[in-house]
């Protein structure tokens, strides 16, 4: 722990710096491969939709004394179609059938109860009409679109549109990966899964907002100096918030993991478990994307701006000059050489920054002038 605290400091000071922004191609390739797998899985395997989406009936028989085959026989005899029967660790047998009428479901519940030695009233029954799923999907999609529009507006106002775009790219990244995991593993997609996905929306953006807030702080007035490029300032911001990102992810994942353990151990499949699996995957993806995708992508967008381009060339020119001077004048000349370079590029902040080569944070304005 103390080691992490120590690293926290060194990350903050820039002594230890992971080049998130500069090595963006690596991260893009990593993400690209994962996304490709996710999309392929989605296209080839499709999603295992729960009865809420395709219609059907589900019966949960707690403490069943019958075998899976017996339960299947009962259900298939009544519906004439296939039934999917599973058993959880706690002894509950779940039977899924094709769509049935409420009256039929009552009969099936009664027979399952008789076959499995369980009172009919103890059996959990859910009957979903075939058109209902498209209805909730439509609603969820409407909600998603409305949310994305609103959040884009908010982020554009609070930050700027480039940050909104970068945040949404990261969000899309997280959602595709999460959905891909569902396609790959064949986990059932239920309304709870949808809830999980929608929560990831909020969570992924929340994470990105925290990082971007620091990026904005670090890059305020950056065009007025020539010590560091936008990319470097942004990279420093990511490094500075890294400990927080790690801590937050751990703290957010702990309850979710406890849901998975309790859900799987005690209840078998159910709302809690469906939700938690989606969340766990999405939170991992969200933590990853806010660091490895959102910020590098933002930098790419930003460095297309003319000011940032000229800043980049100024910084590069200055460094080149500093190196030339340093070679001729040894280490002592570093400061004066850089100062000269600073003067030549007509900036005001250089000298105060020079005392630490490792500390590349741009000068902050006096606190009273900060927002």
């Amino acid at each position, binding site marked *: 722990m103390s080691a992490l605290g120590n690293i926290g400091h060194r990350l903050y000071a820039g002594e230890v710096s992971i080049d998130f922004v500069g090595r963006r191609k690596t991260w893009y390739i990593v993400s690209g491969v994962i996304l490709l797998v996710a999309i392929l899985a989605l296209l080839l395997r499709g999603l295992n939709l729960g009865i809420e989406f395709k219609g059907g009936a589900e019966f949960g028989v707690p403490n069943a004394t019958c075998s899976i085959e017996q339960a299947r026989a009962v259900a298939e005899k009544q519906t004439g179609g296939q039934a999917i029967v599973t058993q959880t660790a706690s002894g509950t047998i779940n039977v899924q059938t094709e769509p049935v009428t409420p009256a039929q479901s009552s009969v099936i519940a009664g027979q399952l109860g008789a076959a499995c030695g369980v009172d009919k009233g103890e059996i959990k029954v859910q009957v979903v009409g075939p058109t209902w799923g498209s209805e909730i999907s439509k*609603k969820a999609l409407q909600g998603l679109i409305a949310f994305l529009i609103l959040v884009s507006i908010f982020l554009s106002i609070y930050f700027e549109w480039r940050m909104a775009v970068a945040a949404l790219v990261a969000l899309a990244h997280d959602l595709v990966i999460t959905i891909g995991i569902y396609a790959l593993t064949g986990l059932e997609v239920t309304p709870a899964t949808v809830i999980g996905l929608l929560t990831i929306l909020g969570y992924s953006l929340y994470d990105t907002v925290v990082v971007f807030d620091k990026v904005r702080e670090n890059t305020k007035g950056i065009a007025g100096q020539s010590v560091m490029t936008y990319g470097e300032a942004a990279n420093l911001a990511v490094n500075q918030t890294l400990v*927080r990102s790690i801590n937050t992810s751990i703290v957010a994942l702990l309850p979710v993991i*406890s849901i998975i353990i309790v*859900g799987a151990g005690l209840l078998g499949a159910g709302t809690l478990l469906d*939700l938690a699996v989606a969340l766990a995957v999405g939170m991992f993806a969200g933590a990853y994307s806010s660091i490895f995708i959102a910020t590098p992508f933002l930098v790419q967008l930003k460095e297309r701006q003319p000011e940032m381009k000229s800043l980049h060339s100024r910084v590069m020119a200055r460094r080149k000059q500093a190196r030339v001077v340093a070679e001729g004048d040894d280490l002592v000349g570093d400061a004066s050489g850089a100062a000269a370079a600073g003067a030549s590029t007509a900036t005001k902040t250089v000298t105060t920054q020079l005392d630490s080569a490792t500390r590349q944070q741009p000068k902050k304005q006096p606190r009273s002038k900060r927002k």
Partner: protein
Amino acid sequence: MAPPPTSKPARLLIALAVLIIGLATWAFWPGTEHTIKLGLDLQGGTQVILQPKPVTEGATITEDQLNQTVAILRQRVDGLGVSEAEVTTQGSGNGAVIVVSVPGVEQDRVVELVKRTALLDFRPVWGVYGPGPVTAAGASPSPSASASGGAASPSPSASAAPSPSASPSGSASAVSTPAPATTGSPSPSPSASAEAAPLVQAKENTPEFQQRLAELDCTNPLNYTGGRPDDPALWLGTCERTGTAKYNLQPAFIKGTNVTNASAQLPQNGVGWVVSLTFDGEGAKALATASTNLTQLPECGAAGANPCNAFAIVLDGVVVSSPRFNEPILGGQAQIEGNFTAEEAKDLANVLKYGALPVTLEPVDITTVSPTVGNDQLRAGILAGLIGLGLVMIYLLFYYRALGFVAVLSLVIAALITYLSLIVLSKTIGLTLTLAGVAGAIVAIGITADSFIVYFERIRDEIREGRSLRVAVDSGWVRARRTLLAADFVSFLAAVVLYLLSVGSVRGFAFMLGLTTIIDVLVAFWFSHPIVVLLGRTQFMQRGSKLTGLDADRLGGHSLAGETQTKSKRRGASQEVSS
């Protein structure tokens, strides 16, 4: 020298204490419920989600129709006598759904109840009387004499049949109606009982039956709102559905299921709207016999006219309309005439067709959970929540030491406020806690804890920049605050949008997420920050021992000895001056 955003931490803490005490008082006020209402997935019961479809293809469902449907369903569900049964709508227009939740009742009964198009039958009228109850003392064996003699009786047949069969087609004979439905609201009876009287039914038109009918108070809304299906094979004594009259009705001669179609029409040569009815073979035969017999009888309302020439359309135990026959109807098609407005005619046609529901209802999701399973789910949810909370607390304490203690306390306070709010919301807006809501609360632990992490990391950043603890606590807050508000706003936005646009379990989750986000902000502003400020003033924290979580070892590291330290101090000092 310190920036002044929170120079009065004690006041904020007091405000929080007042809030908590207020909530607790509200939650545990004696004589009221002080438990969180549980959803059906946690306490067991049946939930049916119904999708209303407009009666005519392509039409839109109006708010009125939805409300009417909900009212009818509620009436039926209330008839089960389960106190916490609920009927709610989610969404609006054609996308709306109606959710019926009945705890502790078997699926079959609930489905039957909500799916049923109300029970409709046609009964010949034996007598029509004024709506008020006739007390036992003054009752004569013949209720018709005592009641219909009263001047107050707004006899439904009084509003005269307009035409001697104005029917356009030869086959469709006409019936005209005096439809008393719009004659105004009845005056409330001073002695209105709080409970609906039992249905007055008997095998024969006995004096005892007549006596019970005479005592029936048709000015009491509970008695004329219906909702209790009658047995069509028995005699029925009941009220007109606006409470304007009382009827003694013979056993049904046609059942609602014999009606194959009903529609409101405006005949080309007619005076006003009429309701056309088509019957199936059985219904047509019964109608022919009944109409032939009834046309011979005297007009209803006249003294001693028992039985009389009218039939009552009875829906869920109350009279909707009581037309009289103008002539025998032999073709299985009939028209009800009267001074209908377009709306009245359509309503009556709908009643005849669907049994009062202005929309057709399709159960799209029926879920039944036994109390045992519900209880298990609740226990699992609570267990998962406690384990999650415990793990998070341990991690925070381990990593942030003294600050972690603040975080743990904040989580406890947040949990307390959430619990109290849920009780209060259960009471005030009927909020129910579902499994999805429990999941939302568990997820919120992480988001709440993140507020502290952002704040604590900011404090550390400030200290690394060379500020003193006292200053860092405030300046770190100023920056963390902005981040928190922005990030929480995004979460809250997600919750609101989800809540407004979703149905079923998603809504419960979204509500919880929104609630906990607000509580998160509240706790961060009113508890965590003031406490940290107060802590920052203590000797213990300022000495920077290892236990504080802010010691130089963890923040500065060994590499920062000597010159770096002094440099930091210098920079810190210069910034103090400039601020």
